[in-house]
């Protein structure tokens, strides 16, 4: 099995553990006193330590150990989780995250910070320990300095499941980075200190779960020199054989310098799906000659694409994965358990019984440890993406089919039409289900923000409380992945520039603690994320002055408040007199805006002087499909996102009013709304079209305010599959993406906001083409 893959799985699990750790600590911080929360926190650190030990990540193990010891004091109630204690622990969780990230991506963590925190943690464990402290607290006092890798075994607090991290050196893998501290001899049996006999009998589940004997034996072979005997006694005749059953067993003699634990850990991911017995000494039966140790690495066996992880408990993934699990269950059931197929070798009947008992015990322990976690599978994102792409093609294909049926006019309620309707419904359902697989709650991103807030609060000496709402709101994974960066920047900005210092707040009658509210919710097919602070609000006078200085607006221009506020998103605009370390990292709010826009999102700000500012981001739930209105403009077919359209209307001559040189308004009931000729603004035609001959789409833009977009005709309404224009061609101003219509033609999807912005005036048009050029 590829080491990097196992390591990657470990890091993915680390991410989950870290999230668990942080949410547990935050819950404790909010006054949660449930012992289960403490246990969960402890388990998280304990698991990270265990895994890190297996990969020889000494820094991580060292720090996790100290952290865990202190947590154990909390668990055993010798240390009270006061706010001060939790503050240290939250910071420790940050360091643990950093150490994990450093181990994953390379790089280093500030050793001093780690050491200081480790000392604080130790002090907590020691300082609070009563003379009659339970034994579990003792290791803290005896523990070696944490960041220095120690060869001595440290005593391990165990959690209630009895899980003991298994130290296992993978140093002998050539593709691993890091120093090879203890090179393992692979040749010459005299140099091996241990000899083990391994009896291994896979069950069909082992294969169904994506494991493979060949890979396991290959990994085992890397630990030393081995001789293998394949036992075929239980193998039925070909016509009785279930090709997916498991009938073979293996008897392996291995000479190695590794300990028994290390031999066992090769089978770690398969142990519940096989009978495994490892005993010291020789097997006592005749073995074939030395087996090949080397396998051509360029032809790897099926990589394990997913594993059934009992620890994974993301509800969304669980739901989505349910059908897949059923499949696996069916396969397993169909293949049957060849209970009597693999007869134990006659020379070791008692031992085999012991293996079976042991396996049962392991299984029972596993079940006991993880009581009710819903089953999920880890699936390679590429596979989901491929599926989404295929479903996209299916949607297009279905639309094409529908169109050709219409063109060939089969007449009324024929069976074909009926079938097509059903097909359409099914396609839609498939598409929704596939999208649901990618949907994930924003919680992990929000949790990361609490750390950002802590750090900046520390740096700026401000007291900040982060309140999060709607963190279970789900959105496409692509959106989530790209959300962290702009969000981080906005949070930094809000704390650094938005909130006042505690002294200043006190002076104006606010509480010393600033409140930052981060919320997510679904609104008309989009996800809306708000960052609200109760700070000073935008200093409009300064923003205006800066914009005049930078030549963005003229001194005479009288802009409404909303537009002044939005000036901060203009490229190159920064009101900070001096660039601070925190928010002024050369990245302006324009970059934030651009990255939100590249996701098909919009950002908007509302600010009340003295009361604070609210940044509102609205993002599509998915980047793959869109409900759109198909329209004709100057002979071209365009798609207007349905979410943007408020209503459509047929303008009457008396409703159209001209003013200025080329501005037109349309009267809608008792209000006037600017009329935007889409064909003209996209330069499809040089002159303005007659509004009376077209249709007006009343749209609402994120910046507030409505516009009536003039198009020539409406063709219909349908769901379209979004194809990126940037990826396939190049970005075009005013166009968000493209799609393929039922007749195979490409239609452009209108970027309503940028068209509205372009209609507002010269400066915004400049920005628009700048965005296109970038």
């Amino acid at each position, binding site marked *: 099995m590829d080491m990097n893959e196992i390591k990657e799985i470990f890091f993915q699990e680390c991410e989950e553990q870290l999230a668990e750790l942080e949410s547990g600590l935050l819950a404790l911080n909010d006054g949660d006193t449930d012992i289960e929360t403490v246990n969960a926190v402890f388990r998280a650190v304990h698991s990270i330590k265990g895994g890190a030990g297996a990969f020889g990540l000494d820094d991580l193990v060292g720090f996790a150990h100290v952290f865990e010891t202190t947590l154990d004091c909390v668990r055993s109630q010798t240390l009270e989780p006061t706010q001060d204690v939790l503050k240290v622990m939250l910071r420790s969780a940050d360091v643990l995250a950093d150490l994990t990230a450093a181990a994953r991506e390379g790089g280093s963590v500030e050793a001093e910070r780690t050491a200081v925190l480790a000392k604080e943690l130790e002090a907590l464990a020691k300082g609070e320990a009563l003379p009659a402290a339970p034994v579990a607290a003792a290791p803290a006092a005896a523990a070696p300095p944490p960041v220095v890798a120690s060869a001595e075994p440290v005593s391990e607090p165990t959690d209630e499941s009895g899980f003991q991290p298994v130290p296992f050196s993978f140093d002998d893998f050539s593709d691993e980075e890091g120093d090879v501290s203890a090179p393992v001899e692979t040749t010459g049996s005299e140099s091996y200190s241990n000899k083990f006999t391994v009896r291994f009998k896979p069950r069909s589940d082992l294969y169904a779960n994506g494991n493979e*004997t*060949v890979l396991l034996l290959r990994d085992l*072979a890397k630990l030393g020199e081995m001789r293998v005997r*394949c036992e075929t006694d239980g193998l039925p005749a*070909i016509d009785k054989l279930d090709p997916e059953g498991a009938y073979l067993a293996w008897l392996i003699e291995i000479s190695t310098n590794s300990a028994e634990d290390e031999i066992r850990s090769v089978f770690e991911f398969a142990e519940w799906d096989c009978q495994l017995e490892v005993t010291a000494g020789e097997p006592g039966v005749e073995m*074939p000659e030395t087996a*090949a140790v080397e*396998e051509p690495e360029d032809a790897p066996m*099926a990589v394990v694409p997913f594993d059934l992880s009992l620890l994974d408990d993301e509800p969304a993934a669980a739901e989505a994965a349910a059908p897949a699990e059923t499949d696996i269950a069916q396969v397993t059931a169909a293949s049957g358990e060849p209970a009597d197929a693999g007869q134990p070798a006659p020379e070791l009947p008692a031992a085999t019984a012991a293996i079976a008992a042991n396996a049962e015990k392991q299984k029972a322990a596993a079940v006991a440890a993880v009581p009710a976690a819903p089953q999920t599978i880890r699936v390679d994102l590429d596979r989901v993406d491929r599926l989404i792409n295929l479903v996209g093609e299916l949607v297009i294909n279905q639309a094409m089919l529908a169109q050709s049926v219409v063109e060939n006019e089969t007449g009324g309620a024929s069976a074909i039409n009926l079938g097509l309707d059903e097909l359409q419904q099914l396609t839609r359902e498939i598409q929704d289900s596939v999208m649901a697989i990618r949907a994930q709650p924003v919680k992990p991103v929000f949790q990361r923000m609490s750390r950002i807030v802590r750090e900046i609060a520390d740096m700026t000496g401000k007291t900040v409380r982060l309140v999060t709402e709607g963190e279970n709101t789900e959105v496409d994974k692509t959106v989530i992945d790209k959300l962290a960066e702009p969000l981080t920047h906005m949070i930094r900005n809000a704390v650094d520039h938005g909130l006042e210092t505690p002294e200043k707040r006190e002076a104006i009658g606010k509480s010393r603690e600033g409140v930052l509210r981060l919320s997510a919710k679904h609104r008309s097919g989009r996800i809306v994320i708000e960052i609200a602070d109760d700070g000073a609000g935008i200093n409009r006078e300064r923003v205006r002055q800066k914009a005049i200085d930078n030549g963005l607006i003229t001194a005479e221009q009288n802009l409404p408040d909303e537009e002044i506020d939005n000036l901060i998103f203009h490229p190159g605009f920064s009101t900070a007199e001096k660039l601070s370390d925190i928010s002024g990292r050369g990245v302006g709010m324009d970059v934030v805006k651009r990255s939100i826009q590249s996701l098909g999102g919009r950002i908007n700000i509302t600010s009340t002087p003295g009361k604070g500012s609210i940044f509102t981001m609205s993002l599509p739930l998915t980047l793959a499909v869109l409900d759109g209105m198909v329209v004709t403009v100057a002979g071209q077919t365009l798609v207007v996102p349905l979410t943007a359209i408020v209503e459509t209307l047929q303008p009457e001559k008396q409703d159209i009013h001209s003013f200025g040189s080329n501005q037109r308004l349309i009267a809608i009931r008792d209000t006037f709304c600017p009329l935007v000729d889409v064909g003209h603004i996209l330069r499809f035609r040089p002159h303005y079209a007659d509004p009376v001959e077209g249709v007006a789409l009343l749209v609402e833009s994120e910046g507030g305010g409505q516009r009536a977009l003039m198009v020539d005709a409406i063709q219909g309404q349908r769901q379209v599959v979004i194809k990126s224009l940037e990826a396939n061609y190049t970005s075009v101003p005013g166009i968000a993406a493209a799609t393929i219509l039922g007749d195979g033609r490409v239609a452009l999807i209108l970027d309503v906001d940028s068209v509205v912005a372009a209609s507002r005036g010269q400066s915004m048009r400049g920005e628009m083409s700048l965005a296109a050029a970038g």
Partner: protein
Amino acid sequence: MTSADEAPHVLKLPAVLDLPAASRLHEQVLTLQEKNIAVDASEVSRVGAQCIQVLLSAAESWRRAGRAFSVNQSSETFARTLQLLGVTDESVVPMEII
């Protein structure tokens, strides 16, 4: 009834012999039950234990039926995997390594 002397049917193995391939291989072998089989494993770049299992079962069944079963051509991967798995059945271990 075929005798062991008759010209064997060449069973060409695909490049990837993973779990899904085991069922296909099994079906294919079943259709050849009346024939002598010469396996060509020269294209095999990936092989899992369950396909080996099918081959081992087939080899034994053919032996019992008095028909010929052998692996005449083999890729290095195939040969090495057999070695790694400790398979010693003469009908399955390749006669030559190409």
